[in-house]
């Protein structure tokens, strides 16, 4: 093997080893609980320090939205636990009951989340209103049929 060839081989080996190690480390990282997200359950369990700003995500509980001028109060749930959110300001058009939203703010001493910003996530479905209505009726029919009237 000529010196040039040996050098090339060395380079290839180094590259493979390096990329391999990097890939292993990445896999190790993904085995750890990387996804750190604040859910109402985490707030309830008191893991989070008070007075630090963070975001909480969840679904708006149906029937809990109360409006008072620009002030809005609603409950946010991750289906296991829920937290009450207060917010004053203009809500985005997509804000509605049952919708997933993200609120940015602080937790007060009373356990109420004081949001300074509310963002709505739109879902990835696109359809005309008639189709949506049709789907909704179909779902209700199915539910009725199964004996779980909504």
């Amino acid at each position: 093997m000529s010196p040039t060839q040996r050098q090339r081989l060395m380079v290839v080996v180094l590259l493979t080893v390096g990329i391999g190690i990097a890939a292993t480390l990445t896999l190790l990282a993904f085995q750890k609980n990387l996804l750190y997200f604040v859910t109402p359950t985490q707030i309830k369990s008191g893991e989070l320090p008070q007075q630090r700003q963070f975001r909480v995500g969840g679904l708006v509980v149906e029937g809990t939205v109360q409006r008072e001028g620009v002030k809005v109060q609603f409950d946010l749930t991750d289906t296991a636990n829920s937290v009450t959110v207060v917010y004053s300001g203009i809500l985005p058009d997509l804000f509605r009951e049952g919708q997933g939203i993200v609120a940015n703010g602080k937790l007060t001493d009373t356990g109420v989340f004081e949001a300074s910003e509310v963002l709505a996530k739109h879902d990835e479905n696109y359809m005309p209103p008639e189709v949506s209505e049709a789907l909704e009726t179909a779902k209700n029919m199915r539910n009725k049929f199964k004996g779980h009237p909504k």
Partner: protein
Amino acid sequence: MRLFRFFHRFASPREFFRIAGSMIPWLAATTLLLLLIGLYLGLFVAPPDYQQGESYRIMFIHVPSAWMSLFVYMVMAGTAAIGLIWRIKLAHVIAMSSAPIGASFTFLALVTGSLWGKPMWGAWWVWDARLTSELILLFLYLGVMALYAAFEERRTAQRAAGILAIVGVINVPIIHYSVMWWNTLHQGPTVTKFDAPSIHPSMLAPLLIMSVAFMLFYAVVLLMRARWEVLDQEQRSNWVDDYLEQLSP
């Protein structure tokens, strides 16, 4: 084999100039036709969305330009690599002509996204994973363009900017995942519904047509840009003299 021969011939500057010149009018006509059909279907035929009403029509330009922004980057980095490894001049020309087109698609995706985000999310801009990585993509494009413009020697400029484009392509997925991960710091997957995204056929058709139209548009502009770049680069060759004489007898 015939395909290879075609590409080999195509890679000679003179043949490229000729073939590209004859392709442009046809491609341009098809692009225009598809754009018009897409706009008609998207603005008049497609019904309003059940949740977002009429505002979702921004999608028909937003989504194709976002797709194109990534696609053009891949083309740019790929041709830059070909140019660097096999020393093919035309590959460099295509890479460097792609950069401004890709940057404008990226910019368009960002602006239309912002115009869509304001009524829907309630903010012109959120530091969301998609948005942030698209913004960084724009910076990568601008970096390549700025580096290309900074050198006086064309050959050096092409190769230096090409290396940057390739370094960027390794970073695009890393940036994308890092930003996505950083964003999910704050919002759990409970929020986003992971059911398969579904779109009604009446809305899908204009979206796909517009995407093809954007792709062809890229091809047309790329060929136009690359042609004049080739002519400039080859100005010492005899065939350029012939071409000039043919233009003005």
